[in-house]
């Protein structure tokens, strides 16, 4: 069983070619920072035979070449990396602003979210666009950022029946999470707006607008600005 002390990483074999490293047991900024530090160290000084890294809230999945490494070997090679986490500095986070046209046809669930919390649509927009969010990790789909920091007053249960197709750029709230759909995918979050900005562009560097560790805020824009940004 995993223990709860944050200072003691826990390991679990996920498959015959991957190892999960747990750096905490809950969604917390401190755990996120440890995940980010380990990710950065492993990117800067890669371990031979490691093929991929999947960061998440408080863990990192490490995929390896099973012909060159096994779980025990990898675990022992991780020890010096893990022992550096406490003193490893993190650079100041990048700050990214995402313009959003809230409500209307782009945010079909805005009024439901407002009703759910006894607010007006304008209050929801005000609250959502005044908070600062942290990108805990990118996961699920290319460029999809898991953001922490949604004001508790906006937490909204997911739709009973997920939409088969959520338009690209939609901004939604699901539970205590908020985020932007980089691609048109199925989704169960409540949609409150849409950004005209592409979240993932293969011609951009980096391709994903948001990176793990970024600080994000949303800015309400008018329909005119939405069109000026190239939104459709």
């Amino acid at each position, binding site marked *: 069983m995993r223990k709860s002390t944050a200072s003691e990483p826990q390991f679990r074999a996920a*498959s015959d*070619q991957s190892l999960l490293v747990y750096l905490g047991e809950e969604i917390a900024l401190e755990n996120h920072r440890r995940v980010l530090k380990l990710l950065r160290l492993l990117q800067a000084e890669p371990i031979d035979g490691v093929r991929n890294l999947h960061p998440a809230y408080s863990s*990192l*999945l490490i995929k390896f070449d*099973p012909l060159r490494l096994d779980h025990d070997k990898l675990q022992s090679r991780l020890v010096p990396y893990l022992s550096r986490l406490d003193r490893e500095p993190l650079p100041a986070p990048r700050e990214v602003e995402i313009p959003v046209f809230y409500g209307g046809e782009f945010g079909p669930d805005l009024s439901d979210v407002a009703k759910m919390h006894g607010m007006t649509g304008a209050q929801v927009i005000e609250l959502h666009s005044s908070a600062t969010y942290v990108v805990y990790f990118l996961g699920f789909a*290319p460029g999809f950022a898991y953001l922490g920091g949604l004001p508790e007053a906006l937490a909204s249960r997911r739709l009973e029946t997920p939409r088969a197709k959520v338009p690209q750029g939609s901004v939604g709230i699901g539970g205590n999470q908020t985020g932007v759909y980089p*691609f048109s995918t199925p989704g169960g979050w409540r949609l409150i707006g849409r950004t005209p900005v592409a979240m993932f562009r293969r011609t951009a560097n980096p391709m994903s607008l948001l990176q793990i560790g970024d600080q994000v805020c949303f800015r309400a824009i008018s329909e005119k600005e939405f069109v000026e940004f190239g939104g459709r």
Partner: protein
Amino acid sequence: MSTLLVEAPGLFTTVQDLGRDGFGPMGVSASGAADAVSLRIGNRLVGNPEGAAALEMTLVGGAFTFERAAVIAATGADFGPSLDGVAMPMWTSIEIREGETVRFGHSRSGARAYLCVQGGIAVEPFLGSASTHVLSGLGGFEGRALRKGDRVEVGAANSLFRKSALSPKALESLEPRKVIRVTDGPQSDWFAESSRKTLCGNAFRTSEQSNRMGIRLEGPPIPLEASREMITEGVSLGAIQVPPSGQPIILFVEQQTTGGYPKIANVISADLHSLGQLRPRDEIRFERIEMSEARALLIQQEALLASKELIQE
């Protein structure tokens, strides 16, 4: 540069190679051939590097006309391929002349057939790979499945034609399995002993809603012992996750990179290619093995794939 004209696309035909590893931090999964073993063998038969890009067909194959002479091989599931109307052998390199058409029919067994061409299918790589990632519309041929009238480029051929075929013995030992071997998943101990027995003691049917992202299974429900809060974490290829419905889903090549359902088990690396040959309504079973055994099976499979005896000239 030669081109291949798509006369008929088939049900779902995409460009695939061995995928792109290393982009998990961007949320981009590896993708790649659903039956990597068949792709690798096909490439060897036509003298390509193992990981060259080829066409992956699903359940119903397409028809392709070659504008110039080429060397090809059909591997994977038997879709009854023919060359200008004459039945064409599989798992063998075949020289074709300018203007000839290779046509695939319906699957006779298995789900995915590969058309490998000497020189490989040439598309602009995305993050180092030619593989199509359908959900995001990235990679492959314009990020999508092929359509009638598409012209797909073939890379320059670099070797002389030497007729070769897969050895019958190798074909037999690489035959897709219907009993899929698994190791424990990271949350195996969240399930009661009886749940784990349900997984390994019963047959499951693959649902029609399965695709390259996930293989949905229908069978006796697998209950979680107690409801525990799962924090979204990285997920592995072949992970068997159990949502609240109790109907398991195997995460496949175009998988999500992270997920929030507990994983009861994980398909071993040596059996991943068998998953790529599962058709809707196929019946499979699971057998639990130890990690050391999974490793030994993979080493054995890789030794066979690297051996001289694999291919006969």
